[in-house]
C-alpha cells in the first residue's frame, strides 16, 4: 500500500469531521441571528407602542386638566424604557441590562395602567372619537408585543438547545456563542397586560 492510498481514509474521516463542525457552526450562527431578529421584532413592536403613547397622552391632555402628573409619569417611563432597550439591544446576553429593561417596562406598564384608570373616570374622554381607535390599536399592539416576546423565547430556546447539544457544547463557548437569556418577568404584577376597555 502506498503512502497516498493509506491516507485516503484518514483524509475522508477528517473531511467528515470538519464538515460536521462547519455545519454545526453554521447552525449556531443561524440560531444566533434568529434570536437577534426575534429581539428586533420585540423592538419593532415596542417602538410601535412607544409611538402610540404620545398620541394617547396628547388626546388625554385635552380632557385631563388635573392629572398632569399621571401623564408626565408615563412620558418619563417611556423615555426610560426606550433608553434601557437601547442598552440591552447591544448585548443580548447581558442579564443585568435585561433586568433594567424589564423594570423600566414595568414602570411604563404601571404608568399606562394609571392613565387607563383615569380615563375611566372621564366620560367625555371615553366617548372621544379619536380615542377609540387609538385604544383598539394599543390593545392589538399589546398582543403583538406579547407574541414577539414569545417568538423571541422560542428562538432563544432553540438556540440554547443547539448550543448545549453535542457536539456544539464542546466549542460553542470558546467561539463566542454565549447562552441567551429568555424574556421572563420576575414580578407578578408586570405579567398583567395593560387593559384597554372598549366600553
Amino acid at each position, binding site marked *: 500500500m502506498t503512502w497516498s492510498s493509506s491516507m485516503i481514509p484518514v483524509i475522508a474521516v477528517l473531511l467528515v469531521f470538519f464538515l460536521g463542525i462547519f455545519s454545526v457552526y453554521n447552525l449556531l450562527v443561524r440560531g444566533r441571528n*434568529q434570536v437577534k*431578529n*426575534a429581539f428586533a*421584532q420585540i423592538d419593532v*413592536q415596542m417602538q410601535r407602542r412607544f409611538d402610540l403613547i404620545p398620541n394617547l397622552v396628547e388626546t388625554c391632555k385635552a380632557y385631563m386638566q388635573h392629572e398632569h402628573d399621571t401623564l408626565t409619569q408615563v412620558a418619563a417611563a417611556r423615555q426610560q424604557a426606550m433608553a434601557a432597550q437601547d442598552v440591552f439591544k447591544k448585548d443580548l446576553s447581558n442579564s443585568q441590562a435585561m433586568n433594567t429593561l424589564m423594570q423600566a417596562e414595568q414602570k411604563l*406598564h404601571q404608568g399606562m*395602567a*394609571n392613565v*387607563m*384608570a383615569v380615563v*375611566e*373616570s372621564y366620560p367625555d374622554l371615553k366617548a372621544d372619537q379619536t380615542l377609540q381607535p387609538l385604544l*383598539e390599536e394599543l390593545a*392589538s399592539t399589546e*398582543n*403583538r408585543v406579547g*407574541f*414577539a416576546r*414569545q*417568538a423571541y423565547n*422560542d*428562538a432563544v430556546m432553540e438556540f440554547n438547545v443547539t448550543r448545549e447539544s453535542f457536539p456544539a457544547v464542546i466549542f460553542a463557548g470558546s467561539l463566542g456563542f454565549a447562552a441567551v437569556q429568555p424574556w421572563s418577568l420576575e414580578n407578578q404584577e408586570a405579567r*398583567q*397586560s*395593560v*387593559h384597554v*376597555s*372598549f*366600553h
Partner: protein
Amino acid sequence: MSFWLQQARARQHALIWILLFVILVVLVLLGVNLVYWGLAPWLPGSRINHLYVINFTVAAMMVLVAVSNYLGLKQGGHGWARQLGARQLTDYGLKPQEQCLRDVCAEMSVASMQSLPSVYVLDHESGINAMVAGLTPDDTVLMVTAGALQHLGRDELQAMMGHEFSHLADGDALLNLRLVITLSGLHALYRLGQVCSEWAVAVEGKVFILSWGLFGIGQGIRILGLGGVFLGRWLCAGISREREFLADATGVQWTRHKEAMISLLMVLREHPEYRVWQHGRAEEFSHMCFVSNENWRRWLSSHPPLKERVKALDPLALVRWRSKQRQIKTASLVPAAHGVNDALAMPFVLHQASTQVALQPVLLLGLCGVGATYTAELQGVSFAQGLALLESSMAGITGLDTLQQQQLSLAMPANLLQWVAHLRLRARYVTYVCSGHAELNDFTPQVAIVVAGWLQLVCKDTDPEHFALIMRTLGIKAGLPGKVSWKDCEQAALNLSMLVHWSRQALWDACQDAVGLAGIRTHEEEAALHALAELWQLT
C-alpha cells in the same frame, strides 16, 4: 403530549412519507428499465441501444410535463384569489370583524416571525374555512371565508390563522406543488405507455399486433405509470395529512391557546354544514384549506378526520367535550344559536332552549341575550332592532308556562340592552379567567354569559336601578322578594354561584381576576369586591 413533541412527530412522519414517495418514483423508473430489458429482444430492428432512447424519452417527457404544469400552477396567490372571487382587505373602511381579522393576522405574523401576506375575504362563502396560496412572499395570499368572520370569536380566528401561518412557514405550498408536479410526471408515463401500445397495434377491421415487443413495453410502462399515480396519490395524501397535524401543533405553539384550536375543530366537527364550499371549483383547492369536505376514503383524503386532529392536540379533549355535553343539556344551544343564519330560525332555537332549560330561567335569560346579539349581527340591524325582532318572534313560542313567560318578558326591558351588548366581550374575559381554574372544568358558555352579566354589574354598572332590575330577574330563581336591596343583590349573586355549581372561592377568584385582569380598580369596584368578600366571609 406537548406541541413541541407533536411537531417533532408530525415532521418525522411527513419525512417518512416523503422518502417513500421518492422511493416510489425511483422504483417506477427502475421498473421501466426492467420492462425494456426483458422485452428488448422482441423489438424490431434493435441495432441501436433503445435503453438510452427510452430512458431519455421518459425523463424528457416527465420534465416537459412537469415544467408545463409548473407554469400552469405557478399562477400567483393573487390569481387564485381573483378566480375565487375574493376581496382584498385594505387599510381603511373596515368593518369591526375585518379589522379584527387584520389585527389577528398581524399578530400571527409577529408570533411566527414572517411577513404579513395579503389578506382576502371570500364574501360568498358562509362556511368556516381559510387557506393560503402562493409561493413567493410577495405573492402569498391568505383567504378567509365570510362565515369564519361571522361565527368565530377572536380566539378561534387566531387559532385558525395560526394554522394557516404554519403552512406558510413550513413552505407547504411549495412542497405540495412539487408533489403534484411529480404526480403529473407519473401520469405522463402512463400516457407514454398508452401511445407505445397504440403504435404497436394496427386496426383494419380487425386488431393486429404489429410488434409484440413494443406492445409489451407499452403496456408495461402504462401499468407502471398507473400504479405510480395511484400509489403516489396515496403517499401525497399521507404527507398532506401529516402537514395538517404539524400545522395544528405549530398554530398552538404560536397562539399558546390549545383550547381555542380544540373548540374550533369541535365546532367544525359537529357542524358539517360549515365545511361546505359554495364555489364550484372547491374540489381543486380543498387540499389547501383549513378543513376539507372530502368524502373520499381516508387513504386518499388530504386532511385527517377532525376527531384525530383534536385527539392529537389533547387525547382527553373528546371525553371532556362529551361529558360536558352530558352534564348540561343546553351545551349545544349556543353553537346552535351561532349557526342560525337568519332571525326566522331564532324562535326555534329559543323554543328548544325553553324546553331544555325549563328549570334554569337564568340560562334562558342569557340565551336571549345571545340571541338578540346574534340577530342584530346577522340582520345587520341595530341591537335595539334586533331585540325587537327577537321579541316579536318570541311571541310565537309555545309551550312556556306562565312563570317562564314572565321571565322572558322580564328579560326584554330596554334597560337590558346595555347589559347584553357587553356580554360577548365580558364572556371572553371570564372564559379566559376561568380556564385557569382546574375545578371549573364544567364551565359552559351559558354559565359564562350569566356570570359575565353578573361580573359586568359588579365591576362596571353601578346604576342602582339598572342593577336592581337585572338582579331581580336573576334573583327569581334564587327566590328573592320583589323589593331588592344591594344586600339582596349580593345574596342573589351568591345563590347564582350555587346555581351554576361554583364554589364561593371559585367565583370570588374569577371575580377578582376579572377585575384584576384590567390592571385597574375603580373605587366602586373595590367597594363591591369588599362587600362581597365580607358577605362570603372570605377575608
